[in-house]
């Protein structure tokens, strides 16, 4: 548990507001939460300074009135740092992390399709994972969405020319 403690002291010392929500669940599993405006600083610090070089993925969660996102960062020695941040459902705007990890474009596009998040700075590309003819305003992984809300023929055309 030593190196997890060391990560905690360094992060909390740099970002005091992380202190109250900082949890070390078990070895190699660290959870912390931050408001969205500080999120990019924490994320950038962890990636550049604290050697969290591997970006596993980002998980979207529908928590009632706001959407929260869990960014999973890992180090080569296996420690997994999960930074949670949330954005209001009314205007769910996020900034992309493709600057550090070009590979995260797909994960963020999944957030756009599944939760209706708007990610600024995301390079344009195809819809993932829903087909083009899937109605753009419906987001399947939102709690209020029901499969019956999908009109009969929707989603049958994969690539609208």
């Amino acid at each position, binding site marked *: 548990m030593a190196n997890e403690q060391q990560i905690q002291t360094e992060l909390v010392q740099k970002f005091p507001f992380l202190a109250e929500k900082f949890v070390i669940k078990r070895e190699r599993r660290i959870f912390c939460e931050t408001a969205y405006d500080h999120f990019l600083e924490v994320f950038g610090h962890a990636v550049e300074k604290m050697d969290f070089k591997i970006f596993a993925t980002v998980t979207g969660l529908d928590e009632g009135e706001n959407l929260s996102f869990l960014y999973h960062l890992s180090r080569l020695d296996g420690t997994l740092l999960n930074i949670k941040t949330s954005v209001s459902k009314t205007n769910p705007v996020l900034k992309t992390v493709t600057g550090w990890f070009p*590979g995260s474009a797909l994960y963020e596009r999944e957030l756009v399709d599944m939760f209706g998040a708007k990610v600024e700075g995301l390079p344009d590309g195809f819809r993932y994972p829903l087909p083009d003819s899937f109605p753009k305003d419906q987001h399947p992984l939102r709690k209020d969405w029901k499969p019956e809300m999908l009109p009969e023929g929707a989603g049958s055309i994969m690539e609208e020319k």
Partner: protein
Amino acid sequence: MSTDMKVMVPIGPQHPALKEPESFKVMLNGEKIFEVDVRLGYNHRGIEKACEQRSYIQDIYLIERICGICSHSHTTNFVQAVEEIAGIQVPKRGLYIRTIVAELERIHSHLLWLGVAGHEIGFDTLLMYTWRDREVVMDLLAALSGNRVNYGMNTIGGTRRDFTPEQLQEILRTMDVLEDRTKYYIEIASVEPTLIQRLSGVGFLSKEDAMRLGAVGPTGRASGVNYDIRRDDPYAAYSDVQFKVMVNENCDVYGRTLVRVGELMESYSIIRQLVKQMPDGPIAVKAPRRIPVGEAISRYEAPRGEDLHYVKGNGTDKPERVKVRAPTLANLQSVAKSLENNNLADVPITIAAIDPCFSCTDRMIQVDDAVFTWERLRAYGIDWYKSQRGIDFREVKKLPW
């Protein structure tokens, strides 16, 4: 092939070894590929939403069907996350059985890949040989778990079947048979000059690119990324066994082949150690139907790379959220990079080198458009190497060793 054409190779929702329902569009820009982007979603079935409407036990059944080849990976991952939330301590013997089946699945997946790679470069004899040997491990899995593919070994709190002493001996005997078959393939992979020439230098991916693009598993380890969940974030019974993590610095398809064949040998030794140290005792613990509030992330070294499951419980018997990130989704970003400034002849083997399992990830790669079917692309690659480099495996009917 007119010169100024662009290459578009959508692979469609099926394993490269199988016939694709879609045709492909390839326009050659001379020989070199300059830019790749990824189009996803052909095989999307909406599993994550379905998980939220089913109980944990039913979810195990559903998650096992995400992909036919790495089914045990997904269930073990999911069950580990749920056990972590509920704070269940799985008995040692249950962990050992889980790990043995995991390694057996890695063996049959890597043998399948070796055959597919041989098929992609026209070496069909290798396909026939490896798939014939794969039947040995499939029979063993059928004997142990009752089914060749979706084994259904896992439940929350342990495993559902035990291994009898005779079955353990049977496992050891099969490992010996498979080991000397794999030595035979290692000899081919490292000695055969044409194979080396056909695979090395192809699909180059530097270490930094591998890290930045999130390459995992053999694809990452072949580019020098020394990262293996079994050793770095040990789960199940991996902390009780010693094994080498196969890493090499070739950064190309040949490196990935060596890593996978090396991993086959490691799997045999892991299984032998596990069978030798197999403890007695119960294989499972009674698990509550309702999982308390909480969240957990569990990671697993699937045959294709790091597979990550995030589960969030809300106190009822249905999960609040289940997120599955399959290894091929991570590797596909790196394929886009490793295809660049490669020539068209190497596209099939480079894409097959990450061992894409499309049902996990329903992927497609688009490289800018014309029409070229996958088989014609494969045939083109084989003939190109025959004419340009004088390597042709199709003449090989019996392996000379």
